[in-house]
């Protein structure tokens, strides 16, 4: 959604409602989204002009805590036919002894508050009913759930509606506090966009003599781009390469060989060479021949440049 006016003018107690039938089927998936058109249509008329669906038409993700706080009481009902494992014998394991020790230790230390004793989960599931503070004008008889919601305007938060009013029965009301018009899920970290990105690097690298395919991987093992065929199963080798290079680099410094430039591993079918710089590593699979000094120099330069491009973005990719 795009903001098209002053959202500050929306009062805090403003609400938005959705049919529970649009929400309930999504609860088990760990996220609840509303198509932007439906979201827009659900907005009270006086605020509708403030929010416009954007071209991307990214679904508006509702805040789960808000949704759950406004659900009807039985929405999280567990299935009735569940079977619980019954154990007639307890084996004295070292783990049992340690578990008892830990339970005592944590019971004695009052600073640890939340964690409870293990729940052998035999009892019927508890379904917390949100305290119902019905918004004015919402009648309890209609099967609706109420959540608070208007997309907040500060990008790039992906929350949606803040839930203020609890549900009655079949409709979800969300208060029209400016929350977030859900931007596309994975916001690109850099506004300007890197001039030299991983895809461009792969294209450049593969154009070099002796290179058949490449991939670029962060030192934590996350591959960001590549065109190495899947059937080569290079993911594992590429993932350990940064660690190997780092270790080698350390020992190279102790020698008179000069700084490490790359590491080539020879397989029976083809060699592969790894280049490292900063927080990333480039894997270059050869086309059966050795890389020329020129290709190596160029691949090293590409890796350096990529490292500079992505140096600030590292934090953004970690929690994917």
């Amino acid at each position, binding site marked *: 959604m795009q903001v098209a006016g002053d959202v500050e003018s929306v009062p805090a107690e403003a609400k938005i409602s959705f049919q529970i039938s649009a929400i309930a089927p999504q609860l088990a998936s760990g996220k609840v989204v509303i198509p932007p058109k439906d979201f827009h249509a659900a907005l009270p008329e006086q605020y509708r002009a403030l929010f416009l669906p954007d071209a991307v038409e990214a679904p508006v993700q509702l805040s*789960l805590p808000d949704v759950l706080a406004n659900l009807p009481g039985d929405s999280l009902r567990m299935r009735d036919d569940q079977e619980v494992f019954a154990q007639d014998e307890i084996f004295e394991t070292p783990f049992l002894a340690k578990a008892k020790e830990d339970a005592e230790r944590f019971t004695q230390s009052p600073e640890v508050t939340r964690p409870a004793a293990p729940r052998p989960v035999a009892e019927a599931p508890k379904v917390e009913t949100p305290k119902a503070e019905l918004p004015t004008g919402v009648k309890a008889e209609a099967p609706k759930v109420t959540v608070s919601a208007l997309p907040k305007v500060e990008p790039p938060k992906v929350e949606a509606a803040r839930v203020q009013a609890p549900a009655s029965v079949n409709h979800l009301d969300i208060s029209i506090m400016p929350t977030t018009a859900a931007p596309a899920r994975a916001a690109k970290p850099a506004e300007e966009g890197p001039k030299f990105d991983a895809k461009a690097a792969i294209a450049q690298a593969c154009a070099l003599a002796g290179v058949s395919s490449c991939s670029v991987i962060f030192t934590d093992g996350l591959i960001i781009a590549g065109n190495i065929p899947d059937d080569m199963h290079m993911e594992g080798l590429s993932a350990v390469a940064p660690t190997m290079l780092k270790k080698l680099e350390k020992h190279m410094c102790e020698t008179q060989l000069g700084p490490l430039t790359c590491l080539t591993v020879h397989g029976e079918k083809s060699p592969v060479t790894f280049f490292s710089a900063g927080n990333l590593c480039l894997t270059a699979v050869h086309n059966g021949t050795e890389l020329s000094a020129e290709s190596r120099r160029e691949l090293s330069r590409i890796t350096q440049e990529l490292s500079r491009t992505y140096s600030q973005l590292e934090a953004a990719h970690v929690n994917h």
Partner: protein
Amino acid sequence: MSIINYASREIQFKIVYYGPALCGKTTNLGYIHQRINPQNRGDLVSLATAADRTLFFDFLPLNALVIKGFVTKFQLYTVPGQVIYNATRQLVLRSVDGIVFVADSQWEKMEENVESFKNLEDNLAKQNMSLDDLPYVLQYNKRDLPNVAPVNYLDYVLNNRKKRVQSFEVVSSTGQNVFATLNAVSQILLHKFSKQSDANRAGAAGVKPGQTHVAPQPQRIVA
């Protein structure tokens, strides 16, 4: 599929800690390693990055107890949680006997928990296994954080199956309920082994008319 060595009277169980990236699987193993007497455990083998993300897996062997005349050993593994390492997860899951599914309790991790759980089911299916037949428990980790989902929602999302399993509220960084979780899954495994052992004995003695014959589960046997 436990490994039974009749020659040395040993049985070995493989327990895999499964869950989304950064949910605390390695922290679980780290705590267990730290608290178990060194005489009863091997080294914790871990290949992690500088950012503490597991590459491949962690491995911790534990010697536990004697049951039905067998020395029982446990091998604990974790899988890499990142989505791209599915091949490694499939590899680690081979011949698994029990699973601890570690969920991150934070609201924003709910979708990842669900995806990881589904991924576990898919990977087991590829090996003709199912969570319906496999001992497993759920661990709701990071309960000390302020932004956690209530347990009834976590149960609704992860434990709303025909077989309802034990779930534990855990703070793996402090160790709270880490052993309770491990104990729970190992109890189920030992229970299963004990029953099978009894059934095998009964089978060897011949099944009487009217008596139900319990088919033993597949096991790898080392003579």
